[in-house]
């Protein structure tokens, strides 16, 4: 019983990363119609950002958690302005290629400097050790990651559903041109939304640094699964991405435990099933519904 619960917790912790990454990917796709292939690279940069700050400036993890996402968010906004924006009126494949290229460049730059070996990153001291959860004990740090990702997901959801900014993002995501004709300058919101999505990826990377292998490949390994998560949740659906993130997290952990040989493909089996039964994803709006 406690073994099962522990697996469940492992799944939720993995799911926390999937959820944060899928959330950013999903808002970016919704608002810009761009599938951001560089999302994994920014996750990797988040982890390396924390590592570099600690290694060269002695900035601790808590500061990195604040500074790195902001920095990457700004870089994201610059990239959006300089490149993504210019390709937006073209066929979506152009931006797909662009972001894929950006991912390769970022990854290779890191590889050039650090190779493919993993860099060590210590856990923040307050979060070191175990916490007693009644039936079993669990690493404090992992519990923190889980709680923070849930809090962030809920916060993003609240902003999207309860604020004027959220209303504008929802409207632009659904019908950009119509939103524009109702007096809202949609273009002005596109850049910050892109930056925000990138910042979330960076934050996930900082969270990953103390518990995952920090190396140049860590984002590339993840991005394909994240795409599957977003498809399972429903393209552009925020609630769907988060829910699918946790579901896929549990699926992979349980898979790892019970049928390790299949664990890598379980996600894609689930994706295929969802596409068969609900082509728009678990939480996606069906095409052709009255708009």
């Amino acid at each position, binding site marked *: 019983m406690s073994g099962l619960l522990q697996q469940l917790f492992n799944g939720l912790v993995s799911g926390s990363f999937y959820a944060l990454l899928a959330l950013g990917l999903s808002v970016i796709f919704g608002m810009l119609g761009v599938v951001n292939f560089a999302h994994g690279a920014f996750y990797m940069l988040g982890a390396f950002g924390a590592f570099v700050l600690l290694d060269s400036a002695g900035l601790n993890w808590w500061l990195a958690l604040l500074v790195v996402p902001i920095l990457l968010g700004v870089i994201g906004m610059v990239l959006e302005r300089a490149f993504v924006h210019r390709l937006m009126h073209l066929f979506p494949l152009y931006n797909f290629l662009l972001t894929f290229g950006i991912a390769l460049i970022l990854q290779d730059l890191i590889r050039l400097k650090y190779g493919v070996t993993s860099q060590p990153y210590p856990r923040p001291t307050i979060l070191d050790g175990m916490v007693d959860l009644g039936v079993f004990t669990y690493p404090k740090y992992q519990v923190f990651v889980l709680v923070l990702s849930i809090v962030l997901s809920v916060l993003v959801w609240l902003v999207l559903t309860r604020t004027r900014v959220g*209303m*504008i993002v*929802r*409207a632009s*995501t*659904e*019908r950009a*041109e*119509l*939103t*524009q*004709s*109702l*007096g*809202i*300058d*949609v273009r002005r919101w596109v850049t910050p939304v892109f930056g925000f999505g990138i910042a979330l990826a960076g934050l996930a990377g900082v969270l990953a640094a103390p518990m995952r292998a920090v190396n140049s490949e860590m984002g590339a390994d993840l991005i394909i699964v994240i795409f599957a998560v977003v498809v399972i949740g429903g393209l552009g659906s925020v609630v769907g991405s988060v829910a699918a993130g946790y579901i896929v997290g549990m699926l992979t952990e349980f898979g790892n435990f019970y049928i390790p040989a299949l664990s890598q493909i379980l996600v894609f089996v689930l994706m295929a099933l969802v596409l068969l039964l609900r082509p728009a994803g678990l939480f996606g*709006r069906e095409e052709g*519904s*009255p*708009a």
Partner: protein
Amino acid sequence: MLNVDNVTARYGEAQVLQGVSLGVDTGEVVTLVGRNGAGKTTLLRCLMGLHRAMTGDIEFDGRSVATLPPHKRCRIGLGYVPDDRGIFASLSVEENLTLPPVTGPEAWSLEQVYETFPVLAERRRQAGTHLSGGEQQMLAIARVLRMGARILLADEPTEGLAPLLVQQIGEIIRTVKAHGVTVLLIEQNVHFASTVADRHYLIAQGRVVESLDNAEVEQREHELLEYLGI
């Protein structure tokens, strides 16, 4: 108030507006009548800045707006109701109403909207697209009133509605006019058009072919209906 001067528009190689010129004065209700495919929707999209491939000039209040982006045209007082009503599924009824900024001093308050359209008040928390077709049309027009737009540009608001609802839309348009809002209305139903509007432009193959008043429309209703293929 609104002056359209020699507007042409293309979709790729196909030119669908061949130089449309027309005018609407302050306080008037004017309809654009014409067959399917005549170019009415395209003209309205040109007025809102949603159709880029156009030439010619559009003046609003004596000022050329032909190069303004859509959101700026909205902000100087153009209120658009697209042919699919433009209601957001991911926004509640109330959010659909409050999404656009207030653009004029005559803007209605939410209370005023709800008083005039009680059904919107009852359903304010529901998703916009959960409303019936007629209610969505009401919502789209109410949204324009809430902005305080000075001209309502409505693309076939009665399309697909039952006769009783068509009458209701007629009432709403009279209310809009009574509040001093100018109206440019696309309409296939010439009888309905003659009951709500002051004047009419007949559009065919991307051109204004005739300008009619109500008496002429009534006199020639049969001929016009035949012409429109209804």
